[in-house]
């Protein structure tokens, strides 16, 4: 599916003293099969924006088109949209409620109108996708570890077969390996099932490692919308709006400043290691040739 956000604006409590413009003239197209990262400081409007994507919040200005149809038109099947766009909130494990993992994951597909057996089939498939095998089906979701709970909650959304999965800080509060597990899972869903993903995150490193496009929000506006290497070169501007670049970006920028012939727009560790080694080897070779020359002359 293609989701097109067209000059969207949202004002909280319009007409009162608490009036606050949270989103301002947002234009954004999320194409089929994309993996997009969304970053921005606390209060920049990320969470408000993602809640528009499945129609949970209705914009006060502008429109949203899904595959060319305006979702604010009368008669638009908004319930269907909420299945097609799966929204995973912050700390989704707080929303687990049922007595067993399987019945919890079944909640979405059942609501969608599937029969009990069909819902179970979908739920099992979703649990497998997040790495929870049959042995977890009858367990209480509350006795799972933090990372497992979060994956169970994500399974609950996946069971509705979304075409676009939007996750609001899915790795907040997780240990490094738990973080990697969730991110690998998203990568797998993206690659194997072709699900489009919007990943909202405060971790610049995670965003740099996984997404192919970054949207930067600041005070309700889109500041940048570009590939990671072109976003993270704006180190100073990013810091001004409460963000940062991955540590690797700083390393490469500083090396370039001190005379190394490296590309400062590199954003991942492996790419950086590759570049630094290449420069190193070239310099070594040159030195060797010069030294050989000196040797021969002597």
């Amino acid at each position, binding site marked *: 599916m293609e989701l097109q956000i067209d000059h969207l604006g949202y004002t909280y409590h319009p007409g009162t003293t608490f009036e606050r413009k949270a989103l301002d003239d947002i234009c954004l197209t999320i194409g089929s099969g994309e993996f997009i990262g969304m970053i921005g400081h606390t209060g920049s409007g990320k969470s408000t924006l993602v809640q528009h994507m499945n129609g949970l919040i209705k914009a006060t200005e502008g429109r949203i088109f899904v595959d060319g149809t305006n979702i604010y038109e009368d008669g638009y099947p908004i319930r269907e949209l909420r299945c097609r766009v799966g929204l995973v909130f912050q700390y989704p494990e707080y929303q687990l409620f049922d007595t067993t993992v399987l019945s919890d994951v079944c909640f979405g597909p059942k609501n969608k109108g599937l029969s009990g057996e069909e819902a179970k089939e979908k739920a099992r498939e979703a649990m497998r996708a997040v790495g929870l095998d049959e042995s977890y089906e009858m367990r209480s979701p509350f006795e799972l570890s933090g990372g497992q709970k979060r994956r169970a909650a994500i399974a609950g959304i996946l069971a509705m077969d979304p075409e676009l999965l939007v996750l609001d800080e899915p790795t907040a509060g997780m*240990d490094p390996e738990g973080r990697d597990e969730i991110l690998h899972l998203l990568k797998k869903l993206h690659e194997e099932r072709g699900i489009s993903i919007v990943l909202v995150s405060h971790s*610049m490193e995670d965003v740099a490692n996984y997404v192919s496009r970054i949207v930067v929000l600041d005070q309700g506006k889109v500041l940048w919308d570009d590939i990671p290497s072109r976003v993270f070169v704006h180190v100073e501007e990013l810091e001004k709006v409460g963000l940062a670049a991955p540590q690797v970006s700083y390393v490469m920028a500083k090396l370039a400043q001190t005379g190394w012939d490296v590309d400062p727009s590199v954003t991942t560790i492996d790419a950086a290691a590759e570049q630094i080694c290449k420069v190193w080897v070239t310099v070594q070779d040159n030195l060797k040739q010069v030294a050989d020359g000196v040797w021969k002359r002597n």
Partner: protein
Amino acid sequence: MARKKTDRIIEGHDLSFHYTVYDSEGNPGERRTALDGVDIDVQQGQFVAILGHNGSGKSTLARHLNALLVPDGGTLYVDGYDTLDAGNVWKIRQSTGMVFQNPDNQIIASVVEEDVGFGLENQGVPTADIWKRVEEALRAVGMWKMRGRSPNRLSGGQKQRVAIAGVIAMHPKCIVLDEATAMLDPGGRKEVIRTVRELNRTENVTVILITHYMEEAVFADRVIVMDHGKVVMGGTPREIFSQVEKLKSFRLDVPQATLLAWKLKQRGLPIKDTVLTIDELIEALNHGAAENDLTQPVSR
């Protein structure tokens, strides 16, 4: 109870703690071990980072440090007071303050300065002193200008700094931050870390920082790694982060700069020591380059 004379703010020996799991009828069931023979010693004024995966026991240990929990086994002295003695609880809470993960769960007043003064009011500190200490505390975290604001209009980093000010106003000897940066954006994380480092340096406040962000732990004097309720590693950040593979086995990581340096070293670049920060990596690389420079005599 009498205070034990010691220069160690935290002195724990062979600590153990178990949670009891209750079934849906409220009957006690299985007991789960959260702390298992933990020894911990912290000198007044030290900056200690505690790392460990989710469920490793870090937060349980943190909650022992101001007697929110008391050990099932072993002994724990905080500022010389035995936490097992219920009569010591208020003295312990005054000497060790906690800052928790969620900025929205620890602010109670509707004005910043009133929130910071809340703990002092509860202690019956005279009003004039309260205002003085609130001012000191808010200045220390750089939030004095915002004293009249409503906390719900602050950013996450600012809220956490207000929470820290609320702790500092109590003049604690030790601050425990239990994943206090987990919900913040990069700018907010930096604000909080800068604030506690400053307090540690200038006021000699002991800092216990629990975090999942490895790059925050490089500033500590000492790093403790926990796994399954046990302390499994301890040392300076350099000693700890030099063991990339061992850390990975505990579901942890190293800062990106450290990992990049480690990968470069594995590929044969002459990086001698464990690198902790971006600047150290740049220096190591430029130093390595200089050693191979043409201006130096080439050894054959």
